[in-house]
């Protein structure tokens, strides 16, 4: 095999392994290495995933039978508020930023992010925000001894958050936590965009970037535009609560609908902020396990950028029941339906990538297959919700809850699990157990479908979300029981996953550089990668540099 810069890089980095840090804790606390920060993001998010999961299980126990008294109404309201806030701001965002932090420099042949210290700052301020949110259980009572954790719902509609309806400090903990997490998110997004624009290795034009990098570019650009209004709204709410401003104070002429606009101009693009990285993982994993290049790379890029733009004009589909009037409703129906076109293009391109390949059903691919079917269903229920009159019935019902959990769990979490199994060998140098992975997959699939398929039904039968109990006789009982059973199965599956993560770290099979016979740059360097990633800057000639090395007779660069 001819000597290429990439191979040279591999040789030279291999010798410099194995310098243990003098003080592990000090090393991690002060690190500005993108890989360590990425891992801290991921571990931190996993801890909150467990906390948010426990909250979900408590809610499902409460709702499993009608007229249950397992928890009080106040505690239940705190549970769904904390569950939503935790899962979006302290699981979804950090875990995806973690993967981005870890993978993007490796995939574009860079040695670190553009702003390493901003990176560390963003992580630590987000981490502080999560701790602050949960400190509310201790410190939230304030002077009035009213409640502890926030109980205003994760979208905290005004004026329920006004001082008069939410005395004490619980809402302030929510506001400040979301505000600080927003600061961290904007910092990391800025970092990712700058890194992608300016840190690519020689030969890596925009058109040769792995799709994962493209998707993170779109996702991070979206974060600028969407998290900023949310962060601004938190400041306005705090002014309302403490300095007598009247932005959202309806008693003094403020507007409740203004808050909804601020929240959903963040809230809907946020769904895409979370799902685009999921697409990113699938874009990397499906081709490798189908043994084929991604079908329609330019179309995939165009669809992703298109989704980014269109997602900024769909927010008021969360507000079809607010009384926007026929003109407003019609516009947002159209914008929302149109977004299904680029999304459809993605699904078709994944299908075409599989078509004609040799599909290997390793655990990462199994989770991607789950993703494909479940994301398809989530998209189709999304079309139902986009038809405004249908939404007048479904909005704020359990159908909506089922729909967005289909996206968040069925699509995003499945893609994340795929990403864990796929990149774990790169990060730790060891394979995750395939056997435990299959147990995890099948149990999670069964639990997921029991919970979230059947969750659509009570919504169609008139069950609104965020009720702590319900009377018998509405036709909701059996569905809620099944949903609860599914939640229990998912819990077991998740425990198997966590066990697998820990066990494989010590006992896993040694992975080597490139266990999946993959094609992007991160597989050219040792596992785990040395702190400087690449000893010398790599040069690439195509979208799949390692494919070209392995198949010089049929290289991508000759196709391009």
């Amino acid at each position: 095999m001819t000597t290429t810069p990439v191979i040279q890089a591999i040789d030279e980095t291999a010798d410099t392994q194995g310098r243990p840090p003098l003080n592990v804790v000090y090393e991690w606390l002060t690190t500005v290495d993108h890989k360590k920060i990425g891992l801290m993001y991921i571990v931190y998010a996993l801890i909150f995933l467990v906390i948010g999961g426990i909250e979900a299980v408590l809610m499902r126990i409460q709702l499993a039978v009608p007229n249950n008294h397992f928890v009080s109404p106040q505690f239940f309201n705190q549970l769904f508020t904390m569950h939503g806030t935790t899962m979006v701001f302290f699981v979804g965002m950090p875990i995806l930023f973690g993967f981005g932090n870890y993978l993007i420099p490796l995939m574009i042949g860079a040695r670190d992010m553009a702003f390493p210290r901003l990176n560390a700052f963003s992580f630590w301020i987000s981490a502080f925000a999560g701790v602050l949110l949960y400190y509310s259980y201790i410190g939230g009572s304030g002077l009035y001894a009213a409640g502890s954790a926030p109980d205003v719902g994760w979208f905290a509609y005004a004026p329920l958050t006004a001082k008069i309806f939410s005395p004490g400090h619980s809402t302030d903990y929510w506001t400040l936590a979301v505000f600080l997490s927003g600061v961290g998110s904007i910092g990391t997004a800025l970092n990712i965009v700058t890194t992608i624009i300016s840190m690519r290795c020689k030969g890596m034009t925009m058109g040769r970037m792995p799709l994962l990098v493209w998707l993170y570019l779109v996702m991070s650009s979206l974060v600028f535009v969407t998290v900023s209004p949310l962060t601004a709204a938190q400041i306005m709410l705090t002014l309302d609560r403490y300095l007598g401003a009247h932005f959202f104070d309806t008693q003094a002429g403020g507007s409740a609908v203004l808050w909804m606009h601020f929240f959903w101009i963040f809230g809907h693009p946020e769904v895409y902020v979370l799902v685009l990285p999921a697409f990113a993982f699938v874009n990397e994993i499906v081709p490798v396990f189908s043994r084929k290049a991604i079908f329609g790379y330019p179309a995939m890029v165009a669809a992703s950028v298109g989704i980014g733009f269109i997602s900024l004009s769909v927010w008021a589909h969360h507000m079809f029941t607010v009384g926007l009037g026929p003109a407003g409703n019609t516009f947002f129906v159209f914008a929302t339906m149109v977004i299904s076109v680029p999304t459809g293009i993605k699904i078709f391109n994944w299908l075409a990538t599989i078509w004609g390949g040799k599909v290997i059903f390793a655990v990462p691919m199994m989770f991607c297959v789950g993703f494909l079917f479940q994301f398809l269903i989530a998209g189709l229920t999304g079309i139902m919700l986009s038809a405004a009159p249908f939404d007048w019935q479904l909005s704020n019902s359990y159908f909506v809850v089922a729909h967005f959990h289909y996206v968040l769990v069925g699509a995003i979490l499945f893609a994340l699990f795929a990403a864990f199994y796929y990149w774990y060998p790169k990060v730790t140098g060891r394979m995750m157990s395939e056997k435990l992975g299959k147990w995890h997959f099948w149990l999670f699939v069964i639990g997921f479908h029991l919970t979230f398929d059947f969750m659509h039904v009570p919504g169609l039968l008139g069950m609104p979300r965020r009720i702590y109990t319900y009377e018998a006789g509405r036709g909701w009982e059996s569905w809620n029981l099944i949903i609860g059973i599914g939640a229990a199965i998912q819990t077991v599956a998740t425990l198997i996953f966590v066990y697998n993560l820990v066990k494989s770290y010590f006992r896993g099979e040694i992975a080597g550089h490139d266990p999946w016979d993959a094609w992007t740059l991160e597989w050219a360097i040792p596992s785990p990668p040395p702190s400087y990633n690449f000893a010398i800057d790599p040069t690439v000639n195509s979208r799949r540099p390692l494919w070209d090395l392995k198949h010089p007779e049929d290289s991508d660069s000759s196709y391009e």
Partner: protein
Amino acid sequence: MSCFDKYSTMGFSNGEGGLAAYGATFFAASTHSPTSIFDPAATPAHSIFGLSMLVLSVTLAIFLIVAGLLLYALIRFRHRPTDSDREPPQIYGSNQIELSWTVIPILIVVMLFLTTTRVILGTEAIPKPSSAMDVIVIGHQFWWEYRYPRLGVVTANELHVPISDPARPTPTYLTMSSVDVSHSFWVPRLAGKMDVIPNRVNVMWIDPLQAGIYLGQCAQYCGTQHAKMLLRVYAQSPEDFAAWVNQQKQPARQDFTGNPVAAEGQTVFMHNACINCHTVAGTVANGRFGPDLTHLASRDTISSGTIQNTPENMRKWLADPNSMKPGSLMPSMHLNDHDLDVLTAYLTQLH
């Protein structure tokens, strides 16, 4: 119902769970629930039902095609142990194919959009008939106030409306706002929901076609007892409705000669803080914070539809509302047993 027959077999067509849920949904919807959106009983709910059937059929067709292709590809192109080690041919894309799966979805979107727009306009943009009746709906934490401005009637939690004959429609227009936080008015068999927002006026209309009680509940999280803010709509024949209006227009009963217990209860009521929050028409009680009690005994339920209106429940409620509905804004007045007895006797006489 023919639609039901048509869709009930969906669940058997594919192993994928989402579909099974659909099939099961239609089954359950047509049999059990008093709040099913698939059992419409008024024009707005009917037109939504029609649209939902169209959208469900289109999305089901898309699902079957795409999921079928995916399943086929995964099985047909799986790696077999007998396969050679060679990588499959690398195909990078095809403009024609990309174009076709861009254009076809656009056509579907345009079709769905136009149909949806028609339903939006048919519900939100049609002129209000002069025969319409007006009701002002006011959301409170955690109950509903109904005022009939042209009839001079004020009531709470149980909304009475006349049924509407399609030939001579008498729809009821609900003009809605809230005194505190956002709520949402949702009676699935009559119409989609409409939010009830403070410092904002929203309008929706319903025209129940048959007499009966239609259930629903608040659909926007509004605080601790969001779950127990139920809705009850009584659709009545024009005669029954007129009789109800007549009865509700009367001032509250004040003469309790022959019923000294109730008379004593009236005194307890009028000398306690009850009157600060509640109205009993024709008396000194003119509070607006809580429900109007002028004809309390004529209602089937108390506590916003969550408790049957029986003397036992009433007494328990008066003793400590928070024991039955934790988070209710009505405080316990710490009355002694005797006062509770006489107050219950009074309130159960307010027909």
